[in-house]
């Protein structure tokens, strides 16, 4: 357990906003269920990022407030709005797209990430079971994998660990971790702390991270 009080850290919305800064026009992006879903709300207006739902839709723009259409949903079952150039296809086509390396960025939630980039996010220990959904395919197939999660678990223990304790989603797949406290690159040499949340020190982050973090020469406060 860390020896100092936990700093406040970012809201879920601000984590999503920080993740959105990683996206560029023309990228094909899959947003996982939960926090990642919020990312689509924080794109600069007019920037054409193409969101894929693994249930068979490409080119949705966000969550819809309109009347519910059961056939127009994302992979979280949420109603969505469609952008120009949207298309629909079956699940075989959808996962051929995912596994074939045609998704530029996947943003998934995480339970644990190891310093080697192993991801654990499908098994819910408190329920003695879980759901895999598209997570293993996205983790293996996306060109770049961003994990958006709270830096610590409910007991304030570290989610970023030397080894994952929970069953893996995939080994060695995570490229970037964005939490309420920090932005961390997963590099072959280990974890690199690139940014800290406003009001959070590198020591605060290290205290809540099991493996040793290297500090980026360009370490800075997140620009939100």
């Amino acid at each position, binding site marked *: 357990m860390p020896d100092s009080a936990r700093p406040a850290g970012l809201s879920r919305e601000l984590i999503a906003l920080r993740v959105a800064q990683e996206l560029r026009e023309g990228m094909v992006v899959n947003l996982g269920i939960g926090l990642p879903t919020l990312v689509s709300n924080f794109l600069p207006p007019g920037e054409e990022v193409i969101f894929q*739902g*693994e*249930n*068979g*839709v490409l080119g949705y723009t966000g969550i819809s407030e309109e009347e*519910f*259409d*059961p*056939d*127009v*949903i994302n*992979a*979280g*079952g*949420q*109603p969505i709005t469609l952008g120009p150039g949207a298309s*629909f*296809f*079956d*699940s*075989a086509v*959808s*996962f051929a797209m*995912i*596994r074939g390396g045609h998704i530029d960025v996947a943003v998934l939630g995480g339970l644990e990430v190891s310093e080697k980039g192993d991801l654990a996010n499908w098994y*819910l220990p408190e*329920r*003695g*079971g*879980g*759901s*895999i*959904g*598209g*997570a*293993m*395919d996205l983790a*293996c*197939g996306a060109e770049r994998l961003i994990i958006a999660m709270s830096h610590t678990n409910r007991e304030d223990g570290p989610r970023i660990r030397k080894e994952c304790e929970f*069953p*893996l*989603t*995939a*080994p*060695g797949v995570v490229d970037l971790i964005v939490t309420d406290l920090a932005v961390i690159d997963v590099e072959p040499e280990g974890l690199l702390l690139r940014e800290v949340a406003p009001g959070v020190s590198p020591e605060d982050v290290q205290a809540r991270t099991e493996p040793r973090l290297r500090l980026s020469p360009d370490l800075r406060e997140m620009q939100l």
Partner: protein
Amino acid sequence: MIDKIVETPDEALRDVQDGATIMFGGFVSAGTPSNLILALQRRGTKRITGIANNIGLGDKLDVLCEKRQLAKFIATFAIRASGGRQSMFEELYRRGEVELELVPQGTFVERIRSGGAGLGGVLTRTGLGTMVEDGKQTVSVEGTEYLLEKPLHADFAFIKAWKADRMGNLVYRRAGRNFNPIMATAADIVIAEVEQVVDVEELDPERIGTPGVYVDRVVQCEPVAVRWDA
């Protein structure tokens, strides 16, 4: 004249026997054959092996747990983080009264496609280094290791489409496709629930998502209302 239309969901299920393996199309609210699922509940068929993307809280398939109709389920979503609530399926699973095989979704659909296309299985990297690889064969292709995932085939596929004609041609609507067109290829008897039956000339050949040759029976039903509450 080819005519695959039957009058009611119950009649469409006339030869579904205890112990049957059944695929169910649908992804949460989209393209789920709810009327066929409810007919299966009424029929009371036992010891079913079910194959569907999702079963659990809010899913129509959960009704098959009321009278313990399921022996085994193959799915990608089953036990979900959903606060304190749990589905009937989860309850039965916890008590050891139903077996669960959890499959990555891409592997799930590709195994079904493989079963429908006469292929020997799927060679995939998904699942390597995880619990999913337990007990499975790996195959090395040009120095890279792949997991061999076996084909899935079923006695019946229950699917949902938007429109059909008497020949069994199906047109899907938007994200209602999902697993439906693939499952239609991988079962001995394919039963389609549709919202509209139209004249055979009315379907655009460019828009047919499942050619009628895959479909054995078509039944027109009022869609069962589905609501989304996350």
